[in-house]
């Protein structure tokens, strides 16, 4: 039991921020992760061992997030203004400004991605899950994950906010 508590304690920050990126609402993300962790606890006997444990946890977290997205439509209803004000204070003002701009661009671009593309992107590039674990988390085949990631990258490449940010980067 202590081992499980320690594991959840360790996994919470990353899971919470993943939920924030998916839901774009810290309050909803907190509720979703709480719900997910309660489910994990209830089904603790079904937790796989080894590397599969992390994918299994994200599967529960993603399901909780999707339940909220589909049930409450929080994605369309909530703005992401507060997320930008929560950016960590950086020691380098220049770097801080660049990160803020980058986060703002990604926030807008992520908002324009549909749910079925946004979740794999977040799991891949924020949570750091490999494609096979993403497949477990979203309960799709690895081939589907690969194609969705490719589609998400294509759309992000064509997103005006990111194109604008890339232009600024080139100018710098």
């Amino acid at each position, binding site marked *: 039991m202590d081992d499980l508590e320690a594991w959840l304690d360790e996994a919470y*920050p990353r899971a919470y921020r993943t939920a924030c*990126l998916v839901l774009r609402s810290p309050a909803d993300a907190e509720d979703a992760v*709480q719900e997910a*962790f309660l*489910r994990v606890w209830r089904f603790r006997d079904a937790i796989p061992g080894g590397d599969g444990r992390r994918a299994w946890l994200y599967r529960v977290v993603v399901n909780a997030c999707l339940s909220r997205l589909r049930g409450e439509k929080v994605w369309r209803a909530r703005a992401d203004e507060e997320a930008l004000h*929560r950016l960590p204070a950086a020691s380098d003002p220049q770097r801080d400004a660049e990160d803020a701009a980058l*986060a703002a661009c990604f926030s807008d671009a992520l908002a324009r991605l549909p749910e079925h593309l946004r979740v794999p992107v977040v799991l891949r590039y*924020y949570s750091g899950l490999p494609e096979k674990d993403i497949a477990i988390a979203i309960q799709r085949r690895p081939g589907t994950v690969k194609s969705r990631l490719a589609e998400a*990258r294509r759309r992000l490449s064509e997103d005006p906010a*990111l194109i604008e940010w890339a232009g600024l980067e080139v100018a710098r």
Partner: protein
Amino acid sequence: MITDDLLERGLGTLGDGYDVPPHAVDEIIAQLRPAEATAEYDEEPAATHRRWPPSRHTWLMSSAAAVVVLIVVAFAVGGGGGNGGGAGDKRASGGNTASTALAPGVGAPENGGVANLDAGGSAAGTAGTTAATAPRAVPMVPARSGVTTLSQAPQQAQSKPGSTIAPDSLTKIVQTGELDLQVDRIKVADAVTALTSYAARAGGMVANSQTVEGDGAPSASVTLRVPNNAFGTVLGQARGLGKVLSQQTKSADVTAQYVDLGARIHALGLTKATYLGILSKATTIGQTLSVQQYINDVQSQIEQLQGQLKVLTDQTTYATLTVSIDQKAHVAPAAVVHHQSGMSKAVHRSVSRFVHGIEAIIGVIGPIVLVLLIVALGWLAAKVGYRIVRRQMV
């Protein structure tokens, strides 16, 4: 194309910008502790977190309740129909048969049978001329030679006052009657003419007629088809022509049989439509021929049932009254009633019950198979549903 590094950097910056709420994980873990969780569920069973998925016991109880409901529904639909059909069969086979026998001077026939005075048959030996006419032809004009011709088209059934049976639109009754008359004041030919007139006025027709005139006393046998609701009227008029030697009337409710035929025709029609739909999608000659064969079979069944329905409709629209007429001078011998021996009756009864038993078993198999099928599907759906719910929950 956007690079992976840029995506990781951008999402990392955006994601890490979210502050993790302090003590949130501690609160969750505090909730997870068994003692607290148990207390929470004990105090507020309908709190924020539902008890889902249900326990195995709950699943079993729910499945059992669903199966019971399905069985009740299946019996209400399939079993009820079977019982109705059975009842209808019984009614059709005489359960609702009204039979009267009147045989003055002859004696009441045993077992509700008919004291049959076969005037035509007895007169046939003396052999005058005999005319048999087709049903629904024309009214008869008896000739002196004894040959009877028919010359009037049938008329449609119509309501007449004084009818003995006024069934509602759903009830289908088959009425038949036999009447033996002995005429004295009028001739047999005149009696036949009068009967023809009665049938025509009631909207009916003469279906068959035989007149025998020879050395002996003349006799005739006339079969009238009259509208069901005019049956009693015509019967009463016919009785007034002479002395009634015997009379028997029967009425049988064939509503269930009628409805069953209609339903089967409808179902086969739907099947045929389905096959036609499949036929339209057939792409090869083999497929077309195969489906066409199915359609032909179904069409054959439909036509067969439609024929039965047509006969039944005719029987329920027109009642049949057979009148045998003898001149008074001729005393017809009493009909020989063949009595079955006790052993013969027992054998006949045994065979009949055996057949009915087989029919009952076949009738029960259908609902049982349906129930088993529904139970199997319910069990499968519950199992799949439980797995899906469990997967979604996890």
